[in-house]
């Protein structure tokens, strides 16, 4: 088993690194700095850290004002509160305003576990992805998180990065370089393609290994940039493998699957299957139990691949 590492910790430590190199980096949080790990930055640079209290709407618009004045603000809290609780604020004061605000949320998806549905962010990608001008990133491990955060800091414009609560197995080694807007081929294959994000990438790799034992040669793409999506990689996968399965810890509606289905329908229609949460809210439970109950495991991906290949 590869080593499991916290994405949140990678985020917090990368912020400190960025803060040392660039005095314009500022960080905001809404009373969750212990969980989002922005606390690392707060300790190092107390003058450039603003705890806004439990007031997310205020926080994201303060971030907009800082960005309008030349700062590079990173604002963090749980994914269920940003964008959900302050959608209108993000829409007008960041997206429409074209401001250089970085929203980095943690605790995305049902892998949050025991806190239950009030804390399961299963709509955030749909919400934030609907906003013109936003770039949306979902890293698959701690190495990709650190890489992506650095690229985002150096790239002008509104960004959303979604991290998850659990530690994840490393799917990359240290010399991996995050390439904004590009899919990463994790496994070659010609029978079908699994396109996954975040916590589902390692599950997709496990599924591909199991399928290989059954003689199915599955391509696996990690799609860390959800928007703008890498259309070329999707079209290539559709035309070369003739079937696509998507996998995400998010509602089926409006997330990775929806975005890819649109590209596939427009450019190269092929059968698709969607591994995602089906129009429902989950319950309390251990992350692994929930992923199992709501159909987000390597096994679910394997079954989806079998189904999609039958439709070819």
């Amino acid at each position, binding site marked *: 088993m590869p080593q499991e590492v916290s994405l949140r910790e990678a985020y917090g430590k990368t912020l400190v690194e960025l803060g040392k190199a660039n005095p314009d980096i*500022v960080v905001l949080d809404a009373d969750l700095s212990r969980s989002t790990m922005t606390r690392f930055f707060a300790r190092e640079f107390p003058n*450039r850290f*603003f705890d806004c*209290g439990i007031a997310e709407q205020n926080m994201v618009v*303060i*971030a*907009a*004002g800082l960005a*309008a004045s030349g*700062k590079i603000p990173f604002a963090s809290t749980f994914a269920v509160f940003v964008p959900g609780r302050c959608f209108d604020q993000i829409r007008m004061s960041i997206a429409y305003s074209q401001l250089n605000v970085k929203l980095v949320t943690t605790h995305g998806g049902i892998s949050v576990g025991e806190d239950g549905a009030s804390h399961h962010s299963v709509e955030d990608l749909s919400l934030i992805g609907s906003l013109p001008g936003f770039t949306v990133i979902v890293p698959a491990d701690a190495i990709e998180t650190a890489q992506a955060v650095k690229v985002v800091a150096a790239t002008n414009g509104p960004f959303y990065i979604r991290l998850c609560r659990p530690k994840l197995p490393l799917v990359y080694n240290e010399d991996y370089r995050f390439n904004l807007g590009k899919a990463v081929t994790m496994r070659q294959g010609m029978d079908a393609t699994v396109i996954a994000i975040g916590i589902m990438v390692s599950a997709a790799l496990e599924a591909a290994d199991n399928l290989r034992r059954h003689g199915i040669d599955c391509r696996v793409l990690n799609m860390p940039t959800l928007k703008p999506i890498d259309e070329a990689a999707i079209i290539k996968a559709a035309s070369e493998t003739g079937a696509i399965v998507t996998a995400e810890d998010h509602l089926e509606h409006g997330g990775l699957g929806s975005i890819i289905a649109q590209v596939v329908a427009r450019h190269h229609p092929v059968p698709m299957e969607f591994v995602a949460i089906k129009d429902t809210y989950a319950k309390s439970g251990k992350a692994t139990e929930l992923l199992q109950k709501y159909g987000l495991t390597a096994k679910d991906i394997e079954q989806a691949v079998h189904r999609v290949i039958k439709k070819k």
Partner: protein
Amino acid sequence: MSLSEWGNSSKTTSADNTRAEVFSSLSVKEMEAIAKRLRRHIITMTGKAGSGHPGGSLSAVEIVTALYFMVLRHKPSDPQWADRDRFILSKGHAAPLLYATLAECGYFPVDELATLRQLDSRLQGHTDRVVTPGVEMSAGALGQGLSFAIGVALAGRLNSQNYRVYVLLGDGECDEGQIWEAAMAAAHFKLDNLVAIVDNNGQQIDGWNRDVMSLDPFSDKWQAFGWHVIEVNGHELTRLIEAFDQAKLVKGKPTVIIAHTIKGKGVSFMENNPDFHGKVPNAEEVEIALKELE
């Protein structure tokens, strides 16, 4: 209490006499003439556009005149000048007032006012910071400007820049919870480079504030949130300028200027008439209004 009874709550001392670079030499009489011109622009441009918000534009004319033609340090020839004082219009529906002011200052040609709300115009129905020179914030969804101003004020402090940040709120806008989140935060961050002005015309869309959603005791609320409060007649330029001067002396906390105003001020049939919040005068009414504003 009648409007004229609202004086400043304390005496003015002028600590910092840095005035707007370009306009600082204007007399009050000249500023009053400008205020009248702004009112004429508001009537003409909304009349021509056929839609827009004249009432809440007219009520804030003196507030914005005092700021742009006396208080703010700004350079119309260089809207992005790093050390400019910032004016943030939170009640974005008063865009006609801001556009008229920016045009009169020279940010863009006065002729352009006639393009308000037209396709491909730089003058959008509500403010858009991306397209209009001199506009600091995109607004229209109420309740966000005070938070935005906090961000701008924090940046100024971090950079050791001494610009000041002024943000104009509507009184109805203060129904929004985010205003009070921001009020708490501005005091917590001790932002004495931040001044909020409330255009306290007593009205919102569905009627009087007191009938829709009571704000009272309004000034006590701000005080309780940790702000220095000044109440003033919002149509008297001299009083407003004194209030802005007084705010400069307040240290360690933000200042709010509650400006008592009349919605639709300056046009008899628009004053205190909620119909003219989001309705514009027809051709005939434009003519009458312009005559009143001669």
